[in-house]
């Protein structure tokens, strides 16, 4: 199966027999949005919760999810057929210097935006303190989540 890699600040869309993969995510959040029936999915790998003044783009959770939904709509996926799965937002270090961790803020923002758009979150593996690699299978709409300290799981 062909693989499409999604790095920090990237958004990639896949149609058909493909896998979308994000390697080694820490505090970043990966949002996968897909058509419940057709083999069409998009993966966003975002770093920060909110877009900054004058900037928008896929390194921010809020503008990134908006872009993700827009691209799927352009491929004729209707919002009522969309579902999402979210991953990441870990607190990688055992001491936090800044109060609430970036990871936690990223997860909160992702859930907030998806809720506002009326897109159901059908699965998640978020938070905790370990890095993850996410392999999303566009055909069967499941994600294999691999980590160093917490084994593997299917979401």
């Amino acid at each position, binding site marked *: 199966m062909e693989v499409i890699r999604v790095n920090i600040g990237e958004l990639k869309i896949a149609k058909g027999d493909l896998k979308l993969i994000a390697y*080694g*995510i*820490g505090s*970043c959040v990966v949002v996968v949005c897909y058509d419940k029936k057709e083999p069409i999915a998009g993966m966003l790998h975002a770093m920060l919760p909110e877009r900054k003044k004058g900037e928008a783009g896929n390194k921010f959770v809020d503008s990134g999810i908006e872009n993700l939904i827009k691209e799927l709509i352009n491929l004729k996926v209707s919002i009522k057929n969309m579902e999402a799965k979210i991953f990441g937002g870990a607190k990688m270090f*055992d001491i*936090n*210097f800044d109060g609430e961790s970036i990871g936690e803020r990223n997860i909160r923002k992702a859930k907030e935006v998806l809720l506002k758009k009326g897109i159901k979150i059908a699965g998640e593996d978020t938070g905790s303190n370990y*890095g993850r690699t996410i392999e999303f299978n566009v055909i069967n709409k499941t994600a294999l989540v691999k980590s*160093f300290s917490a084994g593997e799981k299917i979401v």
Partner: protein
Amino acid sequence: MKELTNFQKDALLELANIGSGNAATALSQLIGKDITLNLPSVSFVPVVKISEKFGKGQDIVAAVYLRIYGEINGRALIFFPKDKVFPIIDLLMKRKSGETKELGETEQSALKEIGNIILSSYLNAIAKFIGLNSVPSVPSLAIDMIDAIFETVSAEIAEADEDALLIENEMIEKTTMIKSSLLIIPDKETMVKIIKALDSTIKGI
């Protein structure tokens, strides 16, 4: 500031040499072995590209992460490949080679302490050279994929800056091939301060 001039790069490399020389001496005393220093490198990198610099993203490392406070503000990371963590602790705690088999609280504290001592030596050397004083924060530890660790540090930096100044050094203990990488990332305002201080220090010589 988008790029470093050659003068600035050379001055920062000199700073890195001085800081890392001290740090290597400290590490050497801690583990009772000679340490070899590789040449430092200084680069100015967009924050989203920091992870890529450290290649082989799926490798597991033990990383000690500290903030730097004072006249220099920034971040520092000291990291070792995971398979060298136990040997380092053996040396540090004067245990027999192969004795350390798990990373319990004592061992984790020991790792954090190495980070603390190495960074303090580095910062003290810098203070003597350019007159800017700073101290490290309480150290924190993560043992995980390089990518995940760097991505998290990058995200924190990205809240404030687009680009980061990376000052890197590698220290190697030849008998056990323990490699320790030291990465200093000054905040943007600090960068300007450091370069000014280097300017006057070097020109004053």
